[in-house]
């Protein structure tokens, strides 16, 4: 996909980079500003939150979560302050050799100070580093909609994500890995709260302007004058209550993650003592499902090389893709109206407003990376991002991969019906794990022309 806005802007950003470099060289290196959390401007713009609220949202987040150097966890989050202190701030070690500032030492260059997946190296990586703010994690043992467990996040840190730039941190002491897990959760919760604050702002209504006696000021027609209600939970108790109720709701997701782990039925799990013929028979049944009922071939391709549906996006890229498409549509509409000429006063005003809005969107677009398509996994490589254990593949088949086009085939929630039985899902696991070893002459059998013969 080509985005004209983005290409122009990319050249512009590079030029800007040079200018910044020139300024830095000229000014020399004085003490740097302490790193600060960055606002999610895509969300602010898409949700049409008036720009006046940006600073206030930032202030509320600051009061609730502190700064990258001094993170703070409200009791409601249940986060461990000691772990956050160990993970946050500049990297250093005390005399006993205890390490601090772990996030900045190990993670920040890719995931960014804010955990928005936009560190300095992010632009050059494929896939892009994870943006923690929506609290959506792909590789976990819980249901699609659920948060990951601490153990899930821990596993990703220990194993890394094979096939991506994410390395393993298994050489770090256990306490350091745990501190990082806590800090990643902290950044996610902070990100979720930022989204919620946009909802709080959305619900604000204008308030009456009052004079020094507390009487409402009125306009010439006698109607009370109205003004923007600021976002300030310190002076508006009802805002405070609403913010805390959002926090409570989102914490419920984290606190119940352990109850949403997918536990396969004991009697359906294939044993480790199966004969080779039994494994082959199971893989063969999985193969039939792959091309039939489970319809894996649609995306993973008729040869399982990941060459099926390749034009869609994951959630993180889709937001940016749609953002850029919308900019194109907005500019087109403005160009068309300017070309039409002869606008009445209201239309003229709307045009001016729309141009201001477009400028705001374009400013944000300048900071985006080019959206990338979600390419279905090539299942013949034997590289499994979420882990190569049978249970890992089972979880992927059962509930899909959160935030991506990969759908689940098991029940989406306890008690619901799924498309496949657990026995069938284990067959698929066997087939998927056999694919890298399938003799090279076999894949041809599954081409769409003779797919009927295969079944």
């Amino acid at each position, binding site marked *: 996909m080509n985005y004209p806005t983005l290409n122009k802007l990319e050249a512009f950003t590079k030029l800007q980079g040079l200018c910044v470099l020139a300024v830095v060289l000229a000014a020399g290196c004085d003490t740097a500003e302490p790193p600060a959390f960055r606002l999610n401007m895509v969300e602010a713009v898409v949700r049409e939150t008036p720009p006046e609220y940006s600073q206030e949202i930032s202030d509320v987040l600051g009061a609730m979560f502190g700064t990258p150097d001094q993170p703070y966890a409200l009791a409601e989050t249940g986060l461990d302050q000691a772990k956050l202190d160990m993970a946050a701030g500049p990297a250093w070690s005390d005399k006993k050799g205890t390490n601090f500032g772990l996030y900045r030492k190990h993670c920040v260059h890719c995931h960014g100070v804010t955990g928005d997946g936009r560190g300095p190296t992010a632009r050059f990586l494929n896939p892009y580093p994870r943006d923690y703010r929506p609290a959506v994690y792909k590789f976990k043992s819980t249901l699609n909609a*659920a948060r990951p467990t601490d153990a899930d996040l821990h596993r990703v840190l220990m194993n890394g994500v094979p096939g991506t730039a994410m390395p393993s941190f298994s050489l770090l002491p256990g306490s350091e890995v745990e501190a990082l897990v806590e800090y990643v959760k902290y950044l996610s919760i902070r990100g979720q709260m930022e989204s919620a604050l946009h909802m709080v702002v959305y619900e604000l209504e204008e308030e009456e302007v009052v004079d020094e006696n507390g009487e409402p000021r009125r306009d010439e027609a006698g109607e009370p004058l109205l003004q923007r209600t600021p976002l300030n939970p310190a002076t508006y108790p009802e805002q405070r209550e*609403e913010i805390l109720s959002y926090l409570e709701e989102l914490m419920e997701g984290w606190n119940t993650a352990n109850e949403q782990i997918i536990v396969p039925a004991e009697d359906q799990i294939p044993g480790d003592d199966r004969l080779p013929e039994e494994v082959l028979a199971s893989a063969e049944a999985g193969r039939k499902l792959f091309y039939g009922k489970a319809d894996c071939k649609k995306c993973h391709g008729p040869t399982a090389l990941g060459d099926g549906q390749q034009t869609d996006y994951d*959630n993180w890229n889709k937001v940016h893709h749609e953002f850029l498409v919308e900019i194109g549509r*907005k500019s087109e509409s403005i160009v068309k109206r300017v070309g039409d000429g002869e606008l009445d006063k209201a239309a003229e005003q*709307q045009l001016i407003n729309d141009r201001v809005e477009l400028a705001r969107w374009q400013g944000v677009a300048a900071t985006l990376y080019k959206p990338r398509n979600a390419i279905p996994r090539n299942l013949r490589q034997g590289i499994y991002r979420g882990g190569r254990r049978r249970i890992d593949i089972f979880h992927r088949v059962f509930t899909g991969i959160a935030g991506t086009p990969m*759908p689940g085939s098991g029940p*989406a929630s306890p008690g619901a019906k799924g*498309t496949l039985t657990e026995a069938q899902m284990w067959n698929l696991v066997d087939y998927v794990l056999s694919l890298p070893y399938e003799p090279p002459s076999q894949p041809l059998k599954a081409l769409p022309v003779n797919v009927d013969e295969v079944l």
Partner: protein
Amino acid sequence: MRHVLSLWMAVLVTSVMPLCAGAAEWGSLKGQLVFDGTPPESKSIQNIAPDTEFCSKNELVDETLVVGEERGLANAFVYLYLKKGKTVAVHPDLAEPSDKPVVLDNKGCRFHPRALLVRTGQPFEIRNSDMGVGHNTNLQTLFSNPPFNQMVVNGKPETRMFQKRESFPAPAACNIHTWMKAFVLIRDNPYMAVSDARGNFEIKDIPAGPHEFIFWHDPAGMRGMAVGKKETDRKGRVKLDIAAGKTLDLGEIKVSASALRL
């Protein structure tokens, strides 16, 4: 003793019920959304793949803006706005959500219907009527309810129930056929409507009094639109008074391109 008590309770309940219904009074809201000006021509979907042969049997068009007969604007949502945590009195006839499922069908490689209304506690059923064609249904942008992404196969509908109301209609997507899109509005009260092919909508039995309503069409609230004597704000919200025993007929509501952010 217990029998006598429950009998008394029954008498009490039956005698009090009509009183309650009489105490609160109800009114309705209706209107017709009409596109102002010449609607842009509908575009057909390009690059139909996969399932090119099957999905090309019927002409697929971009349904972002559907303007029907008499320039009626279809698929617009009109619903009662409630601040977080607030509830509304519900007419006794509508107190319980219907146990009849709201059906979202994958049919002819499009979602049918395009715009749906679901109440919390009401079954929501996703079907796949395209024989031999795989579809998934992905509702990722739910805010209060858990999002989901499920494979839907022929003859085995996926049924879900939602627990919490959402503030806005949420888009549903099929990731296999990327042009497919529908909108689902989940509310915990019955006061919502979708405009039909002629742009008509009606919400019945709303408690009398002042209320705020949202007019919403993909992608956001319909802003700066004259509704009766009032105008919607930038969020598509407008305050309207519902009179007891009456229908507030907003008549023809002109929807400009600007209201739809076109």
